[in-house]
């Protein structure tokens, strides 16, 4: 089932290998892997502190010693995570290290794609950074998080708002930190939106103008501008997307429902459980819900993406 290893042995690596540095969801990647979807951090302000993670190609272990969790895709102990994606790569992850071992014939962009999802999730969990399944949009000086399961329409809404002039801070995963006074802020992340061809076509784009995320899928990378104003943006509100046959509604939730919503929208909460980090998550989630309102949005399934973006813009104005 596992393909042949193609990465060069560690000892043979060229020590003069080019190194890149990227800012990514509160992490600073010092990387020998070129990841054009991430923000280079040559001119990052000092205020944008991050946890340094060394990223390199190399041979990963095939097993983790004493795993607390083990499947065909993932092994995890409290301090390390090993991920295997068939036809793609092995990823070995510690708090401050990511080793990638691509498999023979793997597409480079496929290998990178998992860095923006489960690999990022594992890195954030290992570093105790609250990690929500949400996109985030800059509205004024603040950030609005838009959460929901895959397919709920987070990225489509982000595109609609981007076209209205809003800056998209994150697609799909948003990591949240806290200032000394407990105020929540969101770190900025990947510089693209992952969009299906239907979404692009509905907005009048030609998919030939965009790069596919994987050759086998009709899902594309929509690049976002790099002129970021802020690395840490205060979180003003969270909207959680759902679907309905009824007219679109928005309702603020409170109390325990808020807490359950954060847990449900935590990216790979199950991994957090395996890493035995739920106590820490409980504190972060409690802090977040104490400061930030959460709204449930039941989006009518027939509303057009543009109309829904306009609807959400109206909600932002009301905050």
């Amino acid at each position, binding site marked *: *089932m596992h393909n042949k290893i193609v990465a060069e042995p560690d000892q043979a690596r060229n020590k003069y290998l080019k190194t890149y540095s990227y800012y990514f969801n509160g992490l600073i990647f010092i990387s020998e892997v070129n990841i054009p979807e991430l923000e280079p951090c040559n001119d990052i302000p000092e205020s944008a502190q991050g946890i340094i993670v060394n990223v390199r190609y190399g041979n990963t272990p095939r097993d983790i010693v004493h795993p607390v969790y083990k*499947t*065909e*895709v*993932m092994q995890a102990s409290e301090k390390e995570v090993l*991920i295997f*994606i*068939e*036809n793609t790569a092995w990823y070995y992850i510690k708090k401050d290290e990511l080793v990638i071992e691509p498999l023979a014939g793997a597409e480079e962009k496929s290998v990178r*794609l*998992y860095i923006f*999802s*489960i690999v990022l999730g594992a890195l954030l969990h290992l570093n105790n950074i609250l990690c929500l399944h949400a996109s985030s949009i800059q509205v004024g000086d603040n950030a609005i998080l838009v959460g929901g*399961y*895959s*397919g*709920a329409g987070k990225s489509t809404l982000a595109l609609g708002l981007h076209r209205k002039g809003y800056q998209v801070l994150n697609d799909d995963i948003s990591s949240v930190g806290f200032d000394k006074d407990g105020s929540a802020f969101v770190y900025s992340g990947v510089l693209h939106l*992952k969009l*299906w*061809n*239907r*979404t692009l076509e509905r907005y009048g784009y030609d998919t030939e103008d965009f790069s596919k*995320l*994987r050759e*086998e*899928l*009709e*899902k594309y990378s929509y690049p976002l501008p790099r002129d970021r104003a802020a690395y840490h943006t205060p979180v003003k509100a969270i909207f959680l997307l759902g*679907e*309905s*046959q*009824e007219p679109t509604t928005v309702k603020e939730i409170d109390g325990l429902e808020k807490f359950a919503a954060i847990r449900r929208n935590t990216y*790979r*909460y*199950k*991994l957090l459980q395996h890493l035995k980090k739920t106590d820490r998550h409980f504190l972060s989630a409690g802090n977040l819900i104490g400061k930030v309102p959460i709204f449930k949005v039941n989006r009518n*399934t*027939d509303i057009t993406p543009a109309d829904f973006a306009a609807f959400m813009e109206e909600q932002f104005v009301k905050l």
Partner: protein
Amino acid sequence: MKKIVWLASFPKSGNTWVRTLLTNLLNGKQEDILNNLVAIGLSSREVLDEHMMLETSELTLREIDNYLPMAIRELANSIKSAPCFLKTHMAYTFNSYNKPIYPADVSIGAIYLVRNVLDVVVSYAHHSNCSIDDMISLMEKQDYIINNYPKDIRPQIPQHYGTWGQHISGWQNQSEIPVLFIRYEDMLADTFTSFKKIVTFSGLNATDEQLVNAVNQSAFEKLQRQEMEVGFKERKSKNALFFRNGKSGSWRQSLTAAQTERIIKTHWDAMLHFNYIDANGIPLY
């Protein structure tokens, strides 16, 4: 450990009705039963992503099928008490490693609900907001897959259905998971007896009084009234009620003779096996 009881069927074959019966039996005091049914769907992207630890939206159908047995095992591991009912419309198929997508080592059994394909065609066409001829064509396709990429994403993953007959024979031809076949028409004729078989097969304990109560609370008219009053979040089309008709034999008012003949010819073996036609192909329901 075996924990899962599958509620398996082709769509519009009584799966939701059985879920309301089980919900009324197990959680009868809960408010808004209809929108809090037991047996989550296996096709839920949200559920599978969490247990697979991957984004199914970034996987091909082949890859999803390869990871499905693992995700189902992980789902079973997270279940505290057995039996846990899971709804599925996916056909019993094998992935590219030649492993069944339904892992037997965590499956107590499967309750397979069969409904006369002549009624299924009509009901499913209404449900899907498409013409009857289109639905007949879809249900003849051996590679019938719903929610398939590449265009768009739905909250449910892409799923192999195959033809109506293939869907049934997939479960008939395997021997790893015990299956109880229940005909929708038998449930209509004697709900109590069919439901008792389901409950016994699942290893649940219930008195006859509890079963009768659940049956009464799950009467079609009651479900339809609840849907009209409070809505049903699983309804696909805003125009048509999910609990629309529910009767057996209503195809006679909707299908032409040519359509009926075409359906019978296509699904002959399974229709004959479940006594929906006689040896001469004459419909019995």
